[in-house]
């Protein structure tokens, strides 16, 4: 009823000012959509550098699409896009260390890499991530705009949506849009933009009849469903940043590649594991090298443990640790730097690019493993004179550079001031000066409001209190601003000593500290967190928990043992910093020490993990973490949506058609085979000449087409068809002949294959 009105309205606008508003709106929708996913990439480039090249690339791609949309066919454009992607991905791989080797030999690794990217691995964790971003952007920008300029709006939305989907799957979209309702609104911008484009595009193509409004209705319904799916997904992504697990440990139990700095936390008094070792050490779990301002990332890829690892270059002390788990986890706490893993657990061990260990399976309570570590124990004089001759590999990863501007100039000059005040003259003294300054000038507290923006800068300039994560983050960045390679490390402090060589490690022992690189020595531990206040907090927490009868607090006889502070091992520090570092309540003579209950016999079975090691209960099916499963589930839903969209665009029909065209199927009766061959023949012919009329028999159809110069092979096929259907039937040989002929015709009508057909 109102269709003519709408049509007239459109004609009028066209007449009035010569502008096609529907088309403008459709392109506007695409602009919103493109802006959304480019914004995600832009957000990444703020961390990585290279924002301007990104914007230039995207703008250039769109301009190129505008030009080429008039010049080249869709097929050529598709090939061009795929080529663009392959080239950029290839050059990204080649740019990584051993890229060529990877490309040639380790396809499985590249595929595994891509899968983990699509199951929630943030792009930031890639080495050369800025190259990845720059390589990723042009192809979808070009192709989606190309299609839109050619009025293929549905396909264009699918391409743009795919680009956005990739970023959603890597989790970067959620991170980028975690800031509030405006950003979250932008998250839907992609959906809205795409829908608006398809809707207005359809209106434009079909002359703006209101009858086509059903398309809009369908799309808006889809959008509602889409947002219902996206909301919980966005919710969890936000929790990672704001709420998250309320312990520092949260990120330790699964050793993820990313650890986000949180606000207020609580520490769990539950026992995580016990260690049997000669010396107390900081039990390191994860090492991180890339700082995004709000979180730490581990770049590079973990590889399987393949035997003895490299020792630090300098003098070391060998520490043998037997770890017995009390909790489900797949981390492998070990002192810096683990060089050997013993027992069956070797098969499950993975070594990260930074030399820390993790397990591919989740340990069960009472699983044990043994790790031998070589701990650098250079004396102060050696460290003083170590110099700054850092290996290139260390400089590249652990120092700030142009591509990774992690701190502001103010941050750098403030650090310089602090270092100058202390009169430090070499990297070692600089590290000590920063460590001391942080210990003295910031108060320890678990009750912190997480600052917006760069955590290290906030802690240096604004905040007055914080906990280990803040101390360690800030110190790492301060060292980097001074040109000293440093990295952020998480793990556990030694814990409560319950026997001469046994330590009970609880959740509240989780800790973050700093490792600094010294040439010819290796990575040396520095802990800028004030020891006294920290252990006081821990003791109070354990006492509270004991009073509330928490069964997880103690192991064996640990409740009888005095609580040992855990920050008290100043490695390589000859000066005592005075914060009662050696406060120890241990009384080795106390009778009834429950060592039997604790570690069990060390020798013999000690190095063999329990039989449950192989069962990855805790990690979910297939060893995917819960987070990965969530992303995978979301990806699945998104794929279903995409499939629906593709169906709308007629893709499934095209695929089914192409399959039917190429696949004759199993041989049956000769007559049936010929009938099927003719169906395929018709599919071949209808693409070029239009379909057979219902009142034509196949032979009449071919005869009609013979005037248009149809392939003469068709004549024989339809002749055999007549014989099969109306006549006495065909022989097996004749049926095969028909199939053969149709196959040949399909081949000569397929691009590329055509060249090989005779």
């Amino acid at each position, binding site marked *: 009823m109102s269709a003519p009105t709408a049509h007239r309205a459109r004609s009028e606008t066209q007449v009035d000012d010569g502008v096609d508003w529907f088309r403008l709106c459709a392109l506007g929708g695409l602009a919103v959509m493109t802006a959304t996913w480019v914004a995600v990439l832009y957000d990444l480039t703020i961390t990585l550098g290279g924002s301007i090249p990104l914007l230039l690339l995207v703008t250039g791609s769109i301009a190129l699409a505008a030009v080429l949309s008039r010049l080249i066919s869709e097929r050529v454009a598709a090939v061009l896009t795929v080529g663009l992607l392959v080239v950029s991905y290839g050059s990204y791989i080649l740019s990584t260390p051993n890229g060529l080797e990877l490309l040639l030999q380790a396809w499985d690794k590249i595929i595994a890499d891509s899968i983990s990217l699509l199951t929630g691995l943030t792009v930031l964790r890639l080495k050369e991530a800025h190259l990845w971003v720059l390589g990723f952007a042009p192809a979808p920008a070009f192709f989606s705009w190309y299609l839109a300029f050619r009025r293929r709006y549905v396909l264009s939305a699918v391409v743009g949506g795919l680009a956005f989907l990739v970023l959603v799957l890597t989790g970067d979209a959620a991170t980028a849009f975690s800031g509030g309702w405006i950003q979250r609104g932008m998250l839907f911008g992609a959906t809205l933009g795409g829908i608006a484009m398809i809707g207005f595009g359809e209106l434009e193509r079909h002359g703006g009849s209101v009858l086509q409004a059903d398309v809009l209705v369908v799309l808006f319904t889809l959008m509602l469903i889409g947002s219902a799916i996206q909301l919980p997904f966005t919710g969890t992504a936000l929790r990672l940043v704001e709420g998250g697990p309320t312990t520092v440990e949260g990120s330790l139990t699964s050793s993820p590649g990313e650890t986000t700095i949180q606000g207020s936390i609580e520490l769990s008094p539950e026992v995580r594991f016990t260690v049997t070792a000669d010396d107390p050490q900081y039990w390191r779990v994860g090492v991180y090298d890339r700082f995004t301002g709000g979180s730490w990332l581990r770049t590079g890829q973990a590889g399987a443990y393949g035997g003895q690892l490299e020792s630090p270059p300098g003098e070391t002390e060998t520490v043998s640790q037997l770890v017995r788990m009390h909790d489900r986890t797949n981390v492998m706490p070990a002192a810096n730097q683990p060089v050997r893993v013993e027992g069956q657990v070797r098969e499950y061990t993975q070594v990260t690019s930074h030399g820390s260990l993790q397990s591919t399976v989740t340990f069960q309570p009472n699983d044990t493993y043994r790790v031998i570590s070589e701990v650098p124990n250079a004396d102060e004089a050696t460290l003083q004179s170590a110099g700054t001759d850092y290996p290139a590999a260390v400089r590249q990863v652990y120092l700030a550079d142009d591509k990774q501007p992690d701190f502001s100039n103010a941050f750098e000059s403030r650090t310089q001031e602090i270092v100058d005040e202390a009169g430090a003259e070499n990297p070692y003294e600089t590290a000590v000066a920063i460590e001391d300054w942080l210990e003295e000038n910031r108060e320890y507290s678990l009750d912190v409001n997480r600052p917006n923006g760069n955590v290290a800068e906030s802690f240096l300039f604004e905040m007055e209190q914080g906990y280990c994560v803040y101390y360690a983050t800030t110190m790492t960045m301060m060292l980097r601003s001074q040109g000293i390679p440093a990295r952020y490390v998480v793990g556990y402090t030694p814990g409560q000593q319950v026997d001469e060589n046994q330590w009970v490690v609880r959740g509240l022992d989780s800790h973050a500290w700093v490792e600094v690189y010294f040439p010819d020595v290796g990575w040396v531990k520095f802990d800028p967190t004030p020891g006294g206040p920290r252990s006081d907090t821990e003791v109070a927490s354990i006492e509270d928990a004991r009073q509330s009868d928490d069964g997880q607090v103690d192991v064996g006889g640990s409740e009888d043992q005095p609580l040992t502070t855990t920050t008290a091992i100043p490695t390589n520090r000859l000066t005592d910093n005075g914060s009662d570092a050696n406060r120890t309540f241990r009384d080795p003579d106390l009778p009834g020490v429950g060592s039997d209950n604790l570690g069990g016999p060390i020798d013999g079975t000690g190095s063999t993990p329990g039989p449950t090691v192989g069962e990855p209960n805790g990690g979910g099916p297939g060893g995917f973490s819960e987070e990965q499963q969530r992303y995978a589930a979301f990806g699945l839903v998104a794929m279903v949506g995409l499939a629906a969209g593709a169906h709308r665009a007629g893709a499934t029909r095209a695929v089914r058609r192409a399959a039917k065209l190429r696949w004759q199927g199993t041989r049956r009766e000769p007559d049936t085979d010929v009938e099927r061959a003719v169906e395929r023949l018709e599919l071949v012919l209808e693409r070029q000449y239009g379909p057979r009329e*219902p*009142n*034509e*028999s196949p*032979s*009449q159809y071919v005869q009609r087409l013979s005037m248009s110069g149809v392939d003469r092979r068709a004549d024989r096929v339809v002749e055999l068809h*007549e*014989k099969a*259907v*109306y*006549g*006495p039937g065909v022989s097996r040989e004749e049926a095969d002949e028909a199939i053969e002929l149709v196959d040949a015709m399909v081949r000569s009508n397929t691009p590329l294959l055509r060249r090989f057909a005779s």
Partner: protein
Amino acid sequence: MTDANTPDASHQPSRPETTTDALTVDQAAQVSRDVLANVEDVIVGHPDEIEHVFTAILARGHILLEDVPGVGKTMLARSIAASIDCSFKRVQFTPDLLPSDITGVNVFNQKTREFEFQEGPVFANIVLGDEINRAPPKTQSALLEAMEEEQVTVDGTTRKLPQPFTVIATQNAVEPNRTYELPLAEVDRFMKKLNLGYPSQAEESEMLARVVGDHPIDSLESVTDVETVRRARRTVAEVTVKEPVRNYATRIAEFTREHAKLGVSPRGTIALLRAAQARAVLRGRGYVIPDDIQAEAPRVLSHRIRLSASGPRDQGVQVVEEAIETVPVE
């Protein structure tokens, strides 16, 4: 009385068919080609109509030609008859023509003092009934009975007509006032209704060239014989008609019944299939394909259709064309 091995024997009275076997499809096709080529030496143009006449002969059908005088109807019938070396008789229908003028009469022979039957013109392989609509219905029906039953009954005696027996009747379309129009039930007995029409200018010029001097019909020689035609007719009767084709034919008939006041009768559908069988043989095929049905339908079905009781008679063509266009092949 013994020949009952053709599929449609129940519709046909038994006839003195010889015991010879059917030709192969290829032989029958060859014979047909020879005959048609021979006829085309005489008749200029109308190759389709020539073929239709001959397929009607092979399919045991009769033909109704509706045309203006002088376009070569007689010449066509004569040259076909000459080509197959069979008897040919022509009857000019007039208002005073009696049934016995067609069938023949018993004449008392003075010498033998017995009644002798004197065969009428219907006793020929090909009978040309000129301007059939000028004779009164009773006379018309005498011919029509002969057509349907391939026999003639005079004074209680039934006599078989020769085989093959084909009637080519013409109707004058230009002077409808002085005619007895054939009732539909009788029109239905003709397998096909054809229109020759005027030749094109080139064809007419060619025709004039041929008639200068001796008329070619005079020197036309036969290329086959009656016996061979009989065997070819058996070949046609044995042509395969498979389920999809039968279905297609019935769907077309169904369509005409739905789109006209009076559609195609079952006799029309049978005629369609038989004409299609003959066409298949002409093309060297032992089976009928939808093409055959589509090619024969307009001429086999159109004259059996009435759009309305008083409407013009040639509207049936449109219905049949519509049916061919609309009814899907499969």
